[in-house]
């Protein structure tokens, strides 16, 4: 079990920009999915869960954001709200703070727009050079670091719907390897027409209708003693992360149960201590397998289930990070209490399952 704790977090969700809208939205049990303006969005979905009124100009500023795409602006904004918690440390030793950010493919919208310009313009090079950086996967992580002067290791992690958990796992290794004093870690995802079409074509029929969501969540991960010294509350201790591959449609249940058991074992957590479970969820067989796997691993336990996908849609790469944010939002200002634990799980349709265990006190 690591000595690392989550001591601050920052979320942008379809409930709004900031932690308070997420906290309130969940407390009220509100559904953030709404009808899409089809004149504005030419997509095969009737509904989506968008971050209300979010634009780069509004939240990041008018200067330097003309060509910043949506996922980058979401990341820069979320990281910006988080760095307020470590402003002193960041100013004193900027190279000691790492940024690990999860993303889907970067912005598929930006990638396709740029490629289309090159293919359909009068000349292949009649493209907007300033938009080129949006086409690389690490644009959001890089720009977030540049914008907020974070000079430690800068990593982009992509792993489908498990992205947030994989980024967390990477962040733990990065710190264990001695590469930084603390890590800002999370994931971001944007709503776009191109992502909508890719999801529409890539999904199984049974989950095709799940509306898309978007958002970002980032966490400050640091040693417990550093958090205490700085006067930051340890909201949760990172117990363990586990990942496994599965085969076939019956595979995820068994694989995830093994993951959860192993993570609980490593974290030294009794199943009965689990107070919150935040699964990836959604519709279809995979979601049913996921919940059954957790029940198998926690026999006789009755945790509070936090089902984000029902509330804010499918946030793809940001999903598991937003699930963790939802756990912290639900746990309250003091985080997980002594003896309490939380479980975040995910099933990626490409054949991977994962989970993370967090403890309080």
């Amino acid at each position, binding site marked *: 079990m690591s000595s690392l704790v989550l001591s601050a977090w920052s979320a942008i969700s379809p409930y709004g920009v900031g932690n308070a809208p997420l906290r309130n939205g969940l407390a009220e049990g509100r559904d953030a999915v709404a009808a899409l303006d089809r004149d504005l969005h030419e997509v095969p979905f009737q509904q989506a869960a968008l971050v209300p009124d979010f634009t780069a100009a509004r939240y990041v500023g*008018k*200067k*330097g954001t*003309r060509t910043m795409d949506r996922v980058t602006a979401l990341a820069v904004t979320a990281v910006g709200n988080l760095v307020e918690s470590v402003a002193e440390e960041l100013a004193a030793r900027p190279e000691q703070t790492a940024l690990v950010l999860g993303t889907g493919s970067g912005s598929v919208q930006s990638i396709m727009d740029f490629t289309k*310009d090159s293919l359909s*313009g*009068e*000349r292949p*090079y*009649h*493209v*907007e*050079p*300033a938009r080129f950086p949006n086409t690389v996967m690490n644009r959001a992580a890089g720009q977030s670091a540049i914008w907020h002067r974070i000079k430690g290791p800068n990593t982009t992690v992509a792993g489908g719907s498990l992205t947030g958990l994989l980024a967390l796992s990477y962040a733990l290794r990065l710190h264990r390897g001695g590469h930084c004093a603390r890590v800002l870690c999370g994931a971001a995802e944007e709503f776009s027409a191109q992502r909508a079409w890719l999801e529409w074509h890539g999904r199984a029929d049974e989950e095709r209708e799940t509306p898309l969501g978007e958002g970002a969540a980032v966490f400050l991960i640091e040693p417990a003693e550093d958090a205490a010294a700085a006067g930051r509350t340890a909201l949760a201790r990172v117990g363990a992360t586990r990942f496994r591959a599965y085969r076939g449609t019956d595979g995820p249940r068994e694989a995830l149960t093994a993951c959860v058991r192993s993570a609980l074992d490593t974290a030294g957590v009794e199943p009965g201590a689990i107070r919150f479970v935040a699964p990836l969820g959604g519709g279809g067989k995979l979601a049913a397998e996921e919940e059954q796997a957790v029940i198998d691993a926690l026999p006789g336990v009755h945790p509070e289930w936090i089902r984000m996908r029902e509330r804010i849609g499918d946030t793809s790469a940001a999903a598991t990070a937003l699930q963790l944010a939802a756990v912290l939002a639900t746990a309250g200002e003091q985080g997980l209490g002594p003896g309490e634990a939380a479980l975040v799980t995910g099933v990626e349709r490409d054949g991977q399952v994962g989970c993370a265990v967090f403890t309080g006190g």
Partner: protein
Amino acid sequence: MTTTNELNAEDRARIKGIICDILEIEPDEMTDTSRFKEDHEADSMGAIEILSQLERAFGTDIDQAELSRMVDLDGVVTVVGEAVAAKLARAN
């Protein structure tokens, strides 16, 4: 057939709009001779961006060597006018 490198007022306004957008300034901040670099904090990336956006907008090629003349709105209008004229001459 005579070729002219005089762009009309509409083209000039369009060019100004493109440049102001790239430099992130309001149109009334830019005069015909205010300098992009010295007066509007343009960097080399901004200059390349202006050149390529104008190529896209006017469907023409502008040699990068012309950047040395594209220091203010008057300079850019002249360069674009010549590029458009050269394109028309080739087409004829």
